[in-house]
């Protein structure tokens, strides 16, 4: 058993989870909605990237950017059409709608192109390996990690240094007060969805390039697991989502490396339940008191 090798695999899986988890955590932080459709935006991103690479013969980076732009637009449409009316609805109504949107995207996709999987071409990323301490380190992993880190740094910059980022933080802290201060809450929420969905789209292309196989239902499990990662890190917290994603990716890889690959999915849910019971606010979350 090569532990270093498994660690590399875990990191690349974790970076995909982290990118999806960022969208969950941002959206939950701002409108307190578990956007179940987020995993399906990830799936759409993977398909947009696939078409960009195979039909329009783009390279990896242009395909990544195309997928991010398309997913951002889709994210905003979903928010405007389905979620906007539900801002003051009950939790059950909001959550049910989100599940409905998720199924709608999945099955519309299957309806139009069938459930058959597609395979990303193999030469999207360089197929070279270098050896570090006896472990084979794929160039792909380095590449994925660099892209992920750039996106995360960019996100931190947007959230902490720009005007829209400031508006996002204000709205997630107190939407009513933000409105009184002259912040356009609707646009800020849309911007949050756009950024979150763009990250999910990027994760989709990265997933496709790394694991090659994509299909219309591929977003369900990574979506749920990314949500687990967001809860693990503390929902609403951006560094939490990143750390949660990496932890989950590494734990899953270790569980399957030890020989319990069928229990891999259960491991994620067990982590979820443990964290909910022991530390519901997550690793980086703040404790919020219930007000009457």
């Amino acid at each position, binding site marked *: 058993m090569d532990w270093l090798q498994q660690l590399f695999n875990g990191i690349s899986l974790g970076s995909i989870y982290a990118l999806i988890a960022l969208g969950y955590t941002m959206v939950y932080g701002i409108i*307190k909605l*578990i956007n179940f459709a987020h995993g399906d935006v990830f799936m759409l991103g993977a398909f947009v990237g696939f078409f960009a690479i195979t039909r329009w013969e783009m390279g990896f980076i242009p395909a990544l950017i195309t997928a991010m732009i398309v997913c951002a637009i889709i994210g905003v449409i979903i928010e405007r059409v*389905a979620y906007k*009316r*539900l801002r003051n*609805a*009950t*939790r*059950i*109504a909001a*959550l*049910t*709608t989100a*599940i*409905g*949107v*998720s*199924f*709608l995207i*999945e*099955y*519309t996709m*299957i*309806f139009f192109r069938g459930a058959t999987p597609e395979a990303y071409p193999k030469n999207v990323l360089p197929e070279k390996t270098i050896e570090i301490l006896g472990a084979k380190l794929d160039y792909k992993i380095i590449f994925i990690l660099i892209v992920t880190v750039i996106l995360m740094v960019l996100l931190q910059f947007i959230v902490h240094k720009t005007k829209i980022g400031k508006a996002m933080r204000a709205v997630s802290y107190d939407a009513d007060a933000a409105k009184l201060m002259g912040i356009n809450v609707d646009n800020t929420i849309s911007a949050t969805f756009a950024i979150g969905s763009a990250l999910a789209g990027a994760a989709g292309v990265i997933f496709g390039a790394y694991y090659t196989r994509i299909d219309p239902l591929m977003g*369900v499990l990574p979506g*749920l697991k990314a*949500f*687990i990662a967001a*809860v693990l890190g503390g929902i609403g917290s951006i560094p939490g989502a990143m750390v949660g994603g990496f932890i989950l990716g590494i734990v899953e890889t270790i569980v399957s490396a030890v020989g319990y690959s*069928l*229990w891999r*999915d*259960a491991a994620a*849910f*067990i982590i*979820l*339940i443990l964290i*909910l*019971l022991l530390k*519901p606010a997550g690793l980086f979350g703040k404790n919020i008191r*219930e007000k*009457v």
Partner: protein
Amino acid sequence: MKKSKAFWVYLALALVIYAVVQVMTANEMIDLYYQNMLITICINIMLAVSLHIVIGITGQFSIGHAGFMAVGAYVSAICTMKLGLPFIVGIIMAGVVAAIAGLLVGVPSLRLKGDYLAIATLGFAEIIRITFLNIDYVGGAAGMVVNHMTTWTYAFLGVLITILVISNFTNSRHGRSCLAIREDEIAADAMGINTTYYKVVAFVIGSLFAGVAGALYAHNFYIIQPTAFNFLKSFEILIYVVLGGLGSLSGSVIAAIFLTTVSQYLQAFPETRMIIYSVVLILVMLYRPTGLMGTKELKDVFRLKKRGGSEA
């Protein structure tokens, strides 16, 4: 006095429905396709009503109901197929074990609220499913072969008992406590209601009947597989309850009957079915978030109509 009169009327009505179908089946006026459809409708009614007590009455959002159904299905299948016990013992065991599973899941997770509870129940259901997937004794992913034993009589009795128990529970002191928790948990707590206790009780009753429904489901098809109890199944049960009206027993029964019938006819087009399901669900949530019946029962609707008629 009046209440018991209504009770006997409903019971008589139910027995008439049962007798009519039974006679028609005996005379072969209903073929196997429709018999199967009736049994499926009964199973779905049981699932809907058992989730209704958790979501509609107690207001706890559980999206892992298929997990308890899976427990019931597998336990009953083990009883009848591996241990050679009679079907009725299998059904009872299914209910008991599912109730225990409900207790084990409910005690820790019902401390959570809202979205977190939903995700936790989903997680537990997935863990249950993956556990069955990994037990070779019940066939793993390939599934387990089960004899066809569910008859219209079993299915009908199941529905009757489920509705009787749950509607009586709702109208009892315990049921009113649960309603209070749904309306405002903090206020209910302040009024001296043991909120955790009642939440767990409602959850256990819900799991019990989901387990019984699972037992009937297992013996209605010839094979059970872990994939039959995935998130999609939980979602289907959720649709019955949410669409019918959160807090309306008759609403969830009507939604279960209606949607099962529709989906039987759309069986050849599974994608179209899911698209229609989700679009309907989104539209109902956007324009009528309380569901079609709201918290009203069927008898309230009729009573309102009658009163309106006499005044006019």
